[in-house]
């Protein structure tokens, strides 16, 4: 449960960041942005776990 929440929080923050980086918003941009943000959010979670329990 905490895992889902953590990824979700990261995803929301990173999608917001993507919206800051781009210049024009359109549906495709949103799709690519949220997919990239999801990948980065998953990496954030996996990375934190890998460092925490070595």
């Amino acid at each position, binding site marked *: 449960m905490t895992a889902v929440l953590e990824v979700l929080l*990261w995803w929301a923050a*990173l999608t917001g*960041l*993507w919206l800051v*980086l*781009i*210049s*024009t918003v*359109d549906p*495709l*941009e949103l799709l*690519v942005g949220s997919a*990239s*943000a999801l*990948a*980065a*959010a998953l*990496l*954030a979670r*996996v*990375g*934190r776990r*890998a*460092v925490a329990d*070595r």
Partner: protein
Amino acid sequence: MSPRVRLWVFLVGAAGFAALFAAACLDLPAFGTVPHPYGVRAVHAALSHHTANVIASVNFDLRAFDTLGEESILFSAVIGTVVLLRQARDEHRKDPEPATVHPPVRRFALLTLPFALLVGLYVIAHGQISPGGGFQGGVVAATALHLLYIAADYRALERVRPLTLYEIGEAAGEAAYVITGLAAVLAGSAFLANVLPFGTLATLSSGGTAMVLNAAVGLEVTSGIVVLLARFLDQAVEIEEPGEGGGSPRDTRDSGGNGDDERERA
């Protein structure tokens, strides 16, 4: 050849080069003034294919075949490294030692990690719109992963880095480039011709095949750099030679020291 003779050979060569170089420089067009005819045509071609970033248009559309060559150079360079830096039969692997990292540094690295990956993906995705592209973004994304090595140690990095996947990714990126080129042939045009609809200028879907090829390069470079660094990390952190410190040096390992040795002998 004695050092003295060598110096004279160098001086003669350098003097000749200096003369020719100066003569060539005198014939150059004035600095930053005359618009080059190729530049004008490249900008025109890029805009006619709805690619906002002219450099991306040159790389992935006008000269897509050149870029295929460049991509293959990186591809084969990575393969060469993998072969040279493999674990030899007389070497053994030891577990990397855990590292203690200052907590603020660890927190900072862990927080930067997703940001760096997102910036890398952003640079890849917007290659045909703004400066950047598959290569630049790919390197940033690959660097992002190695922030884990900074945040903790090699063990942490190994846990989140399925190397086989990255090896597949590298090959898939290279293959996707060639397949896109061949698809253009099947569509009745030339190899790597831009056959897709061009889309609206300055959106993610613009540029036709330039967009696809850019993504393929992004995949190849990201995976390639990860594989490349993995080999270097393995050698520096994990692999030990028999009787390290006195064992017979092997040719492939000496690349780092060769330059120095030659200088010393010189």
